[in-house]
């Protein structure tokens, strides 16, 4: 039995599981209900975009949270997945379903192989290497006109039905929002469980002090490589959604500016919570839309938002919400 003193001290800092899951279920249900609540199509279009970009930002945030690496090249996995779908659909006899499943798996394997090169670096060098690798993919698609049609991009030729559903389901904002929202929710929930698993705690420990973890008896290279590969895989799933929704891909889907955007979204949303970058995506997309409707200098408003969040909310908006949530429950933040 716990002593009163122990209870008094331990209760405020204990990890709770039930409440976050309930809140997640409610938020997920609200998302699924939106299309049937008469939300305008333009708003649903923004929600669909935000869900897709949210998957990419979640991949970037996951990498930051579990490994400490800041990637400036995740667009390579996102756009690479979309390009793989376009190229395989155009040049292979594989079914659309196999292509859509194979693309992120190929990216996962490529990300795993790339990780062993990337892990020879750390900090700024890692960020620069990720940027260089992504820009190499961008240049390749720009210059290789015979295959990728250069800056004009490629149309993604998919059949009228995919996974037994009409292709139009994936190209209408209301239904695509439901699909991409479902994917985003599943990814965030999986990452939340992963962060609480032994593998999650191990990678967090490696991030904090790799040498110490080695002396606890762990080989640390493989877990770090798995985190990079998983992050690449999630970004590639975002690329699949992008390909299905747009039916078209250009080299801009590989450009560093998209990687930067995903990083900004992750910072605004906050990377300490699995759902932070997803929240950041919705805030970013709607902020950009509102600012874009009122001024041509919307980038300035996004920049100011980033500065305000970075200075005032170092753990992002999700971090601030978690702090408020804990305060409301009388729980201290450690």
């Amino acid at each position, binding site marked *: 039995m*716990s002593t009163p003193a122990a209870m008094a001290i331990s209760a405020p800092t204990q990890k709770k599981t039930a409440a976050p899951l309930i809140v997640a279920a409610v938020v997920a249900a609200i998302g699924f209900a939106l299309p049937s609540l008469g939300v305008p199509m333009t708003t649903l279009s923004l929600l669909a975009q935000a869900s897709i970009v949210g998957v990419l930002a979640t991949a970037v945030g996951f990498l930051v949270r579990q490994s400490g690496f800041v990637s400036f090249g995740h667009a390579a996995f996102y756009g690479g997945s979309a390009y793989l779908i376009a190229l395989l659909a155009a040049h292979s006899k594989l079914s659309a379903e196999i292509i859509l499943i194979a693309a992120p798996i190929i990216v996962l394997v490529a990300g795993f192989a790339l990780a062993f090169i990337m892990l020879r670096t750390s900090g700024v060098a890692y960020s620069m290497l990720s940027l260089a690798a992504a820009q190499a993919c961008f240049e390749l698609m720009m210059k290789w006109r015979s295959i990728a049609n250069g800056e004009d991009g490629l149309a993604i030729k998919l059949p009228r039905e995919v996974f037994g559903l009409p292709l139009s389901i994936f190209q209408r904002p209301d239904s695509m929002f439901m699909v991409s929202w479902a994917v985003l929710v599943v990814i965030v929930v999986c990452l939340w469980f992963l962060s609480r698993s032994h593998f999650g*705690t191990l990678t967090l420990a490696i991030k904090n002090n790799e040498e110490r973890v080695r002396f606890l008896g762990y080989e640390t290279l493989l877990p770090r490589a798995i985190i990079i590969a998983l992050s690449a895989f999630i970004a590639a799933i975002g690329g699949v959604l992008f390909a299905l929704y747009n039916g078209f891909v250009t080299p801009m889907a590989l450009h560093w500016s998209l990687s930067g955007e995903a990083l900004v979204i992750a910072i605004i949303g906050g990377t300490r919570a699995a759902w932070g970058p997803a929240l950041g995506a919705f805030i970013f997309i709607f902020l950009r839309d509102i600012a874009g409707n009122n001024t041509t200098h919307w980038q300035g408003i996004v920049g100011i938002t980033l500065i305000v969040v970075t200075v005032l909310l170092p753990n992002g908006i999700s971090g601030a919400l978690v702090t408020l949530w804990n305060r409301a429950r009388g729980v201290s933040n450690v």
Partner: protein
Amino acid sequence: MSLLELESVDAAYGKAKVLHGVSLKVEKGERVAILGRNGVGKTTLVNTCIGVARLNGGQVSFGGKKVSTIRAFTAARSGLAIVPQGRRIVPGLTVRENLILGSAPNRSGPWNQEAVFNLFPILRERADTLGTAMSGGQQQMLAIGRALMANPDLLILDEPSEGLAPVVVDELGDALVRLAQNGTSILLIEQNFGLVHKISERYYVLSKGSVVEQGSMRGLSLESLKKHVSV
């Protein structure tokens, strides 16, 4: 064959030589202390044992294997566990998660989560508390518990009393005595003579990177203590 053996070890950080011809032994089931003031090379000695500090000369062997040939993550798997100076509790992880992290080597033995909780009951009460949210003494217990989860043949404790209140040091000492009675070999690097006296059977005194005195605890004189160690 000794469990841990250092033979004429010279060690350095870059060009700065820290250890000069250090020789010592820890036998199976033995509790040995390394005494010495700040800056005499005690932590370097620990780092040499685990292959972190560069060996300029001599040899370190653990269980008959040269330490220089052991990779960092295999040291724990071969039975060498360290409780580092400063404890190094992983932020963001609970007490239980920190303990589970320590069970990586998958070695069989008496130590598991339940056994650690029996040794340090406060950890059971705080099992779901963040490790870094506990007091210094409790964090030290967690660091020791985490090391024990590996079922080590030798437990190296680097200044476990550092920054702890005397009453907490006493509590920690009692737990280490119980641990020693279980037959766990201990190499204790410490300045607190009370703790050393409570736990150890033999001692080595380190001064300016060399062993200047050694023997059984009974033979350690007050004069020697005043000369080489803070009392």
